[in-house]
């Protein structure tokens, strides 16, 4: 019964059904997602064949430590997200079911071409979902670039197919490792295709338009879940299948580094809440990509996990704020959390985790990034990562201080009246934010579980016995 294919098939089936059973669309959606998020806990780790043909010939789904980890996170968060926005999802129920199937497919599939299909499903679902924000021109931008990207990706895998005669990831990986030629151009095209989706810098022109107006629903979905899943896919392809080497790694790492730094620079100057987070997402993607390219998969996994959870809360809360207040201009949000402390605390914990302060999960992410980078005798990247983290700290703290405190510079707080506007945000959103925040806090004090899981996940992509990670329990292992 614990077939991962059901994670794709059931939502798809329900989606097809839901267009005639219009009245119970939302229950169907919740039911489907509930089913998925229950099912994920029973899935075994192995390769699942579809259609009865063994892998290089047929398509297979792969469940291993790497993606199981994310399947659980993504499915549960997807359900949570829908529950938090239950009033808004009605028109989109069908598309959401497909999106859920698409994301699961992206995570599960073990076939390069099938991956392309799921990229398309997921991104078309995203296009449609984004129409909720009424920014058609900006979504159009996304459509054009997204389609271009998937075309480039397809071109890349076709070239690989021409060379190696297979589309299966595991098979391809073996053939590439055994082969004599490096199909650079194919790698590059695949990189370009995925880079658009993971928001690497020169490729991410669509991001700002789409995410800066994202609602409390589309924001977490696109900014957190989609971004996370695409990064996982990136890791799967570039960490597990393709075998980069030489100049290619350097060039692509440079792109990652530029993304990281430029993302932080742009976030630093942003004056709107969601603009800050979207730029910060760009930077985090850059970081994860750098780590994948450097072969440090386990920390890249950590970065992705931390980023999914923290961005989820941040976009959710920011979207709600924008919906309630009517804008998200940071300068006009002074003391917004003073009347809504619970939400504020969740937001604060999450952002502190994002910048990697101790007591929060992000700290262990940062430490392990540095450990891994220094272990691979890198000197420049950690310095740049730290510079980026420095800028990030500055703007996040500036943001938090603004949102918790009232008053102009030089005014004493006791002389200032508290803000009168109230932040009416539903109980569910608050509860979700707080629970996720507490998770970050708990895993910040006891991160071993997550870290060990990430090491396992990273080891799936390429086995590295010399991995050292820093955990709470054993220190350096």
């Amino acid at each position, binding site marked *: 019964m614990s077939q991962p294919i059901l994670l794709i098939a059931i939502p798809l089936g329900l989606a097809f059904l839901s267009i005639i059973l219009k009245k119970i669309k939302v229950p169907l959606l919740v039911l489907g997602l509930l089913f998925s998020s229950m099912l994920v806990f029973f899935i075994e780790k192995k390769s699942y064949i579809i259609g009865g043909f063994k892998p290089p010939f047929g398509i297979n789904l792969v469940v291993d430590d790497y993606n199981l980890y994310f399947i659980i996170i993504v499915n549960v968060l997807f359900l949570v997200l829908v529950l938090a926005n239950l009033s808004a999802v009605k028109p989109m129920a069908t598309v959401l079911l497909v999106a859920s199937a698409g994301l699961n497919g992206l995570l599960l599939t073990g076939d390069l071409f099938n991956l392309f299909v799921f990229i398309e499903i997921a991104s078309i679902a995203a296009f449609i979902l984004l129409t909720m924000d009424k920014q058609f021109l900006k979504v159009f931008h996304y459509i054009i670039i997204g389609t271009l990207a998937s075309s480039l990706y397809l071109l890349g895998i076709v070239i690989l197919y021409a060379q190696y005669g297979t589309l299966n990831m595991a098979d391809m990986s073996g053939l590439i490792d055994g082969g004599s030629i490096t199909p650079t151009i194919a790698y590059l095209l695949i990189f370009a295709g995925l880079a658009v989706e993971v928001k690497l810098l020169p490729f991410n022109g669509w991001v700002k338009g789409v995410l800066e107006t994202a609602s409390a629903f589309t924001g977490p979905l696109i900014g957190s879940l989609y971004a996370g899943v695409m990064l996982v896919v990136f890791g799967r392809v570039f960490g597990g299948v393709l075998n980069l080497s030489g100049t290619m790694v350097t060039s692509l790492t440079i792109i990652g580094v530029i993304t990281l730094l430029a993302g932080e620079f742009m976030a630093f100057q942003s004056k709107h809440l969601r603009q800050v987070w979207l730029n910060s997402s760009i930077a985090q993607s850059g970081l994860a990509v750098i780590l994948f390219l450097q072969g440090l998969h386990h920390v890249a996994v950590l970065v992705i996990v931390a980023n999914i959870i923290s961005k989820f809360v941040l976009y959710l809360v920011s979207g709600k704020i924008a919906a309630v207040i009517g804008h998200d201009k940071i300068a006009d949000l002074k003391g917004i959390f003073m009347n809504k402390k619970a939400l504020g605390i969740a937001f604060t914990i999450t952002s502190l985790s994002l910048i990697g302060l*101790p007591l929060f999960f992000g700290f262990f992410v940062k430490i392990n990034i540095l450990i891994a980078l220094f272990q691979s005798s890198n000197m420049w990247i950690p310095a740049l990562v730290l510079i980026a983290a420095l800028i990030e700290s500055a703007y996040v703290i500036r943001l938090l201080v603004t949102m918790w405190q009232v008053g102009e510079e030089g005014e004493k707080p006791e002389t200032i009246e508290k803000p009168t506007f109230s932040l009416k945000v539903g109980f569910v959103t608050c509860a979700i934010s707080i629970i996720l925040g507490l998770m970050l806090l708990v895993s910040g004090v006891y991160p071993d579980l997550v870290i060990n899981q990430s090491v396992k996940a990273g080891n799936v992509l390429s086995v590295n016995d010399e991995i050292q990670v820093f955990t709470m329990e054993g220190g350096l292992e």
Partner: protein
Amino acid sequence: MTITMIVVGLMALSLVTYVVSKMSKGLGSVLTILGPLVALLFFLLEGSGIASGSSIGILQFGATKLGWFFSVTMLIVYGCVAFFNPYWMKKLVHPSAYNMLYILSLAGTIGMFFAVDFIVLFIFLEIAVFASMFIIPFGKSRNAAVVYFAMSTFGSFAFLYAIFMMYGKFGSFDISFVLGQLATEPTTAIWVIILMGIAAFVKLGIFPFHIWLPMAHGNAPDTFSPILSGGLVKIGAFIAIMVVAIAPTYEVLKNSYEVMGLPILIYIVLIIAAISMVVGTLMAIKQDDAKKLIAYSSVANAGYIIVGIALNDQLSLSGAMMHIFAHAIASAAAFLSIGAVSYRTGTTKISELGGMIQKMPITYTVYLISIISMAGIPPMAGFISKWLLFQSLASHGLMFIGAAAFFGSVGSFLYVFRPLSGLFLGQLKPQHNHVKEAPIFMVVPMVILSGISLFFGVLPNGLLNFIGKIQVELGVEGITTVDTAIMGNNGLLDPTLVFINFGLGFVKAFIIFMSLSKSRKVGLMDTYTAAEFVYDPNVYHYAKSYYAPIERLYEKHPDIVALYKGLVQRVVDLGRLLQFIFFKTKPGTTALFIVLTIILVLWGEKIW
């Protein structure tokens, strides 16, 4: 009681405090008093041989005399300052959060001082930093917190990078092991020393990283400025001691070019310290806000601490440690007395105040004693440390550093006198006629701190002997004392003798004074006015731009704050530019970038 228990207990207490404060603010603030005091009690009862306790996960602590010394200093400051907290509960925006963060920052500092492992050290360092950072915006300024945190994070990250450089070479985070190995890798070692030095500079507020100090100290809530200045800044000193004394810095640098018999790097550090003495002094002289003034004085005093630590010899190191202690106590007391004035009057601006001595004589006395200590005048603890430092400077023949140190020392007379004269002395403003002395529980800690300053100024040898033991622990020859006298390189100092002489002189003066006819008491307005009739105390008080003639001499000084602002502006501009370039609504542009990138990468592929 073990260190682990104390640290973990404090961290737990911070949460408890938050919950309790939610129920009752007063009770929560009482917990902030009890926390440090109980911890202090344990430290004092167990002595420096306190058990380190079993480790919890990575949280492993090792008892060192150095850590004990710093912790006790910190706890005294925290414990005394905490008495002010109950009075501020209704003034603060988030009182519960304040109480929690107060204890949390204490836990951070204590944990840091006893860490045996760099990561643990870093964890607690960051906890201390961010806990304190969140308190600062409760005061007057929002930007101050951001600047503080950004600067501090810059330092922390430099430190972190150094930690990982060592880790990359030696594969361990163990402090003593890694630092011990450092001499085998001179290139790494130099980088590590520089980076950790930067971290120490940032935390201490050494030029050019000092800008956060006046902003943060000057704008933090009045109850927290003493903690920042007396307590948290000293974290930098701890790191500096670690760099110079624990790490084999002199051994690593022994082959480098030498200036005045010192490795060039050390000499550069001394010059930076000297600059920060001068800059701190000059900036302190021109401040009108008493809190900012003391904050700049911390910059200058940090310079002394760094000089002492960098020279790392018998006298200088003990001088530095003595200075750490003396300055922590004195600066906390000074901030507290200003805080007490602010509590009663609502301002800390010198020009808005005057004649407070008539209403708050005890607060005035506390301020007087603390500034005497800060200016390094006998018979307070600050004198001992300055004397030791000057001994060391003189025996090294460091004339430029010495000149700066003398300048800072003389300059300190100027700036400490400014609030004394403008704020406490002179004419009382009419609007302050109804001001009362600070409440008794605010007076008590201030008096205790003053007593400590005085006690260790007269009988410092118990403390100095302990510092001597720390020095031995750090591998430096310990300071030697004979009875009440301190042995310098080129002379002896007997603080007790100095005090007794001063006492005798004072008694003589007192006898003369009392034996003569009693003076008639007249009001402050009844003075020589060259036959002018002056009726308004406001215009008859000299407090505004007190040192105008001196200030005029350097009013066109280059502004380091502008430099930093420029830097931030560059970052913003760059961000805008990037956003302008990359985020167009036109898909064609993005497509162009995609094509360009592919071309560039392929081109790179072709070339290499």
